[in-house]
């Protein structure tokens, strides 16, 4: 059999948008087989995994709640990825944002609510930016690989959070659990509806998506970043600063991850715990990719990824499967996407059966 990849004269726009959908379909197909192999009724499992979480208004609220940090982080990361800056330490920047916001919440709990929440948001943003700035500085000044540095900082951030919740910020009445006290009323983000946990940071996430859109596609700085992402030589020739793009790419990622960390401690968590992050920083990499680094795409892929989280939890409850099954789905989705992406640049040609090429 002769199948051949043939370079397209121009990249296929249709495939660019079709490939995430195709990946989704194949991921579902693989999930179907996987459930069957695990000895579960696939159709019933699918219902539990993908439909159950959306059946109630509470479920939908949880879906958006989970999607908020993913969308926020992925929005920031997409700017970095477009600049070809591989910030994969969003998990650490998220944790730092959470720590910084917690510091403000614990020490200024006498401030009025709007002021306090604003302060927390700024603190969270700065916390994430500081953590990302370490990577940016080491990259631009010493040429240290940003992938490895930002990832190492994830572990350092985790231990920093551990130290805070085991040490200075430990809840004295927490029965020894590694966590801070529950935040005061003023440090908690207001929700839309009684009894549903989704809070106003959803509006924040949407706002940042819009800002990101204008930044990437309508601003000169965004253009410079795109150029240095495509070709360093072209950027240098045009006089755009490569180091500037690295800084902006990393700081944008850090700021968004930091604010996501703030929205987590100030929203569903109401406190800082040792396990505040739940892998959002890594899942957001997939969100950014599956969303084609585009704000609209990120919105939908964020919801999809949130569904995979919730589905994993449901599978744990009702199917007696570890919730990490959600992670397997996330990984598969990215695998398929990367595989299908060859069809953007290439097309498959069937060149006949057993025929020698001239």
């Amino acid at each position, binding site marked *: 059999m002769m199948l051949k990849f043939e370079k397209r004269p121009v990249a296929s726009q249709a495939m660019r948008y079709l490939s995430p959908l195709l990946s989704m379909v194949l991921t579902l197909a693989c999930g179907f087989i996987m459930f069957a192999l695990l000895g579960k009724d696939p159709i019933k499992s699918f219902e539990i995994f993908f439909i159950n979480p959306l059946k109630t208004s509470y479920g939908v609220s949880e879906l958006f709640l989970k999607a908020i940090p993913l969308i926020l982080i992925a929005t920031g990361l997409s700017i970095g990825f477009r600049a070809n800056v591989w910030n*994969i330490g969003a998990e650490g920047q998220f944790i730092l944002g959470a720590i910084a916001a917690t510091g403000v919440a614990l020490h200024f709990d006498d401030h009025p609510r709007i002021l306090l929440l604003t302060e927390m948001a700024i603190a969270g943003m700065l916390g994430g930016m500081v953590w990302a700035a370490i990577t940016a500085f080491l990259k631009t000044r010493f040429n240290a690989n940003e992938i490895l540095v930002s990832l190492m900082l994830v572990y350092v951030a985790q*231990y*920093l959070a551990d130290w805070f919740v085991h*040490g200075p910020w430990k809840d004295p009445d927490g029965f020894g659990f590694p966590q801070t006290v529950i935040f005061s009323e003023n440090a908690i983000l207001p929700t839309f509806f009684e009894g549903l946990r989704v809070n106003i940071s959803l509006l924040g996430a949407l706002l940042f998506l819009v800002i990101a859109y204008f930044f990437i596609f309508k601003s000169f700085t965004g253009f410079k970043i795109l150029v240095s992402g495509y070709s360093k030589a072209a950027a240098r020739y045009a006089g755009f600063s490569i180091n500037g793009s690295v800084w902006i790419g990393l700081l944008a990622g850090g700021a968004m991850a930091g604010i996501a960390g703030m929205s987590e401690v100030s929203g569903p968590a109401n406190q800082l715990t040792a396990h505040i992050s739940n892998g959002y920083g890594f899942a957001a990499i997939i969100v950014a990719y599956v969303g084609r680094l585009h704000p609209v795409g990120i919105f939908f892929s964020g919801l999809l990824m949130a569904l995979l989280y919730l589905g994993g939890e449901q599978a744990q409850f009702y199917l007696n499967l570890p919730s990490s099954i959600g*992670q397997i789905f996330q990984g598969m989705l*990215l695998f398929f996407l*990367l595989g299908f992406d060859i069809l953007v640049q290439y097309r498959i040609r069937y060149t006949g059966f057993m025929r020698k090429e001239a």
Partner: protein
Amino acid sequence: MDPQIFTAILHATIIAGTPLIIVALGLLVSEKSGVLNLGAEGMMAVGAVTGFAVTYHTGNPLLGSLAAMFAGALLSLIFAFLSITLLANQVATGLALAIFGVGLSAFAGKPYESETLTPVEPVRIPFISDIPLFGEALFNQQLIVYISWALFLGVLWFLYKTRKGLILRSVGESPTVAHAIGYSVVRYRYVAVFFGGAMAGLGGAFLSIFHTPLWSEGMIAGRGWIALALVVFATWRPFRVLMGAYLFGGVMIAQMFLQGSGLEVDLPSELLAALPYLATIVVLVIISRNPLSIRLHSPASLGKPYRPDS
């Protein structure tokens, strides 16, 4: 310092460095062929859980190690297919593999959480293990420690003394030229990635079968990433991988150093635990400061997909 403590620390350093040697040497070979596989963490995790499960059920750690190698290699084939055949971005594919592998290991390892294995007895090499100070630490070790040394010699010999090794390196330096001469770039890269996967699996198995010996989610704790950094630190040279691995091994057991030194220092345990990661950053900075040295020693086509345009 008490000689017994010295021996104990040396012993522990070697144990801590061994998985890094195995994994980093595998990655080195795959990077020498021009392929950067960032999925080491995922392959190690899957290797660790596979090795543990097989040893748990068969009681045979050797069989467990082989299964772990197989599992790691199998995962690396997914990576190879996507990045070599389908020309996907190596960085993104590697990341996907890391996320997928860690998730898969957590999923598959759930039933084994908090189970333990009977510890494997170390293998004592007669006579030389009686050397004072060093003998007990170097030559009364797990079998796999000796294997890691053999692996080092094997990789060194293969890369620099064999024809195939030369071709592999040329594939990594200039795939176009290698292809033009008539070597299959794709085949060499597949084999190199496969080898890297098998070694990552073995490195993971060392942790879960010989080192701890138990399985718990997250037990790889970034060692796959540290191994990747180690290859950069070693500027793609096997001997430096060996030395660097023991250096990192030493940092990982910093707690023991402190106790052994008898100094009265009150450091938070979290800081000590974060040391290996901080050390990795410091080392990366020191080594990368000189971009010329990196450019000189890194395989020229590292990370770039290759497609013969015929």
